[in-house]
């Protein structure tokens, strides 16, 4: 019997701490474990007893890259518990803030974390000398997203201007002018980035995923919608627990979510795109086709193209909202707490982020449940690793290790969020 072991002790260019352990016996992968050793975060427990108004600011601290996602899922869930719906310009401003987060998160992942895999560089900094124009462009796009966060959220990381019911302070029309100019430039740069990533060489790999994303009546999903899947799931967000469950696995401090009775599923840009292609404006669809994408994409390595496409879309959407902005009369809908249970899911850059809260009559939080995108993708990543490794066993260990790390980075995983995630270890027997 021949044994081959490949270990990556610490996976680079992802957020958080994790490792990969791959075991190969007699030319077959017998196990692929994404070992997440980031410390448990215990956020759900520390929310108990806090006031419902504190959830957006506390949960934002789960992540420095996607704090807006946490704030948005939190405020929507609390508003659902209180039976109110934020509409009109306040709703539009929330979508605008979320566009800012998609822009900064996607730009960072494409240029600094993922593109180096396709071009054979160990990191974005070493890629920068050879591709200075694209790196400079990517950083300029990220900066435009950061400025949106600063304007609407008060600061770029962990914004402080979001509250249940709306915002603390509303932006003025005049304040948007410089950001709009920056977004127009970012949009042009994003199109160049899209054309650039479309020229990369992609491993010939596909899997029959169950894609899960939000779906809205008319919009490409960001802040709301029903939860739908490529295998016919179509439920209200409040029914999340009836269809999905989180499991503990011994090699990970992150829970792994599955669809009950079915197993793994994929959330994130590829799922959003496949389930909502018809919700993209015609111009974005044309750009997708020009970049080599059909209406459906099952190659996770091509997720970088979809991220670049979403980058263009988010710039367009932000500019649309800014152009139509009229300051509403009040910055937030006034709220009176009462006992209730609320659910919400929004589309974080990495996929759906589900929050559920139970609050008491005085507004204190009795119970909180948070299911981040990386927990949901974890099993899917392990299955990808098995299949990618089986198809590439002829590679020497170093080449296999690189390919497997790239497979993980296809998901832009956020380990800190999931810990509630990489070293790569491959064992060949």
């Amino acid at each position, binding site marked *: 019997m021949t044994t081959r072991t490949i270990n990556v002790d610490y996976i*680079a*260019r*992802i*957020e*958080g701490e994790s490792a990969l352990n791959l075991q190969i016996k007699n030319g077959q992968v017998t196990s692929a474990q994404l070992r997440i050793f980031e410390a448990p975060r215990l956020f759900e427990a520390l929310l108990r007893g806090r006031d419902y108004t504190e959830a957006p600011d506390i949960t934002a601290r789960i992540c*420095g*890259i996607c704090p807006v996602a946490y704030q948005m899922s939190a405020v929507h869930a609390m508003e659902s518990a209180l039976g109110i719906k934020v509409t009109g310009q306040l709703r539009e401003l929330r979508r605008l803030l979320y566009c800012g987060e998609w822009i900064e998160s996607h730009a*960072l992942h494409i240029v600094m974390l993922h593109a180096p895999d396709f071009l054979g560089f160990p990191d*974005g*900094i*070493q890629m*920068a*000398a050879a591709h*200075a124009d694209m*790196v*400079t462009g990517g*950083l300029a796009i*990220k*900066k435009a997203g*950061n400025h949106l966060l600063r304007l609407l959220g008060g600061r770029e*990381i962990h914004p402080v201007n979001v509250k249940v019911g709306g915002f603390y302070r509303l932006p003025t029309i005049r304040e948007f002018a410089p950001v709009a100019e920056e977004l127009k430039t970012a949009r042009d740069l994003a199109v160049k980035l899209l054309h650039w990533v479309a020229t990369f060489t992609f491993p010939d790999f596909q899997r029959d995923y169950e894609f899960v994303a939000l779906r809205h009546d008319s919009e490409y999903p960001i802040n709301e919608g029903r939860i739908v899947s490529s295998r016919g799931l179509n439920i209200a967000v409040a029914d999340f627990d009836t269809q999905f469950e989180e499991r503990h696995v011994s090699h990970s401090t992150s829970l792994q979510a599955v669809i009950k009775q079915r197993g793994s599923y994929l959330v994130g840009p590829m799922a959003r795109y496949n389930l909502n292609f018809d919700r993209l404006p015609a111009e974005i669809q044309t750009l997708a086709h020009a970049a080599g994408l059909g209406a459906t994409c099952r190659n996770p390595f091509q997720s970088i193209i979809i991220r670049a496409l979403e980058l263009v879309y988010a710039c367009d959407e932000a500019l649309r909202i800014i152009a139509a902005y009229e300051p509403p009369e009040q910055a937030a809908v006034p709220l009176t707490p009462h006992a209730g249970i609320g659910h919400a899911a929004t589309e974080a850059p990495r996929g759906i982020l589900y929050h559920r809260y139970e609050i008491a009559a005085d507004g204190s939080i009795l119970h909180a449940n948070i299911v981040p995108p990386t927990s949901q993708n974890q099993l899917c990543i392990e299955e990808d690793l098995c299949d990618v490794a089986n198809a590439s066993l002829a590679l020497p260990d170093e080449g296999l290790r690189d390919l497997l790390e790239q497979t993980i980075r296809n998901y832009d995983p956020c380990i800190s969020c999931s810990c509630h995630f990489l070293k790569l270890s491959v064992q060949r027997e």
Partner: protein
Amino acid sequence: MNPHVLVIGLGNPDRGDDALGREAARRLAENPQPGIKIIQRDGGGLGLLDDWNGYNTVLLLDAAAPCGQPGHIHRINLSEQKLPPGFSSNSTHGLGIAEAVQMATALGRLPPQLIIYAVEGKSFDFGAPLTPKVAAAMPELLSRLHEELAQHS
């Protein structure tokens, strides 16, 4: 006249000795001088490339990890010497001074003169004040910064 010297105080004001760079910048800003701009930032990272764009001389003030001499002032002139190891960020999504310098070098966006003043810290506890030896180093730091700025203005 447009400022051509930029002073950047780096750090987290609520993390003990990490506040030192910002505190030094704040004290320098009490006596504004023509040609010199003083700003404060939370940390290193790629935002620095935008901050120092167009400046001839940039002074970075930051606290350094403890290495036996709390309050000891290290001056690193990047046009004369390389950044010593230990300036790298441990975070994957947040980049430190070293990564900002490497990226700026790759993109040709390093200021002609980049001088780092790093003062060894002792404690970086949440909400803590500067530790005594680090606080005691402040007058010497300010005096050396005034001398440095006089040479460049």
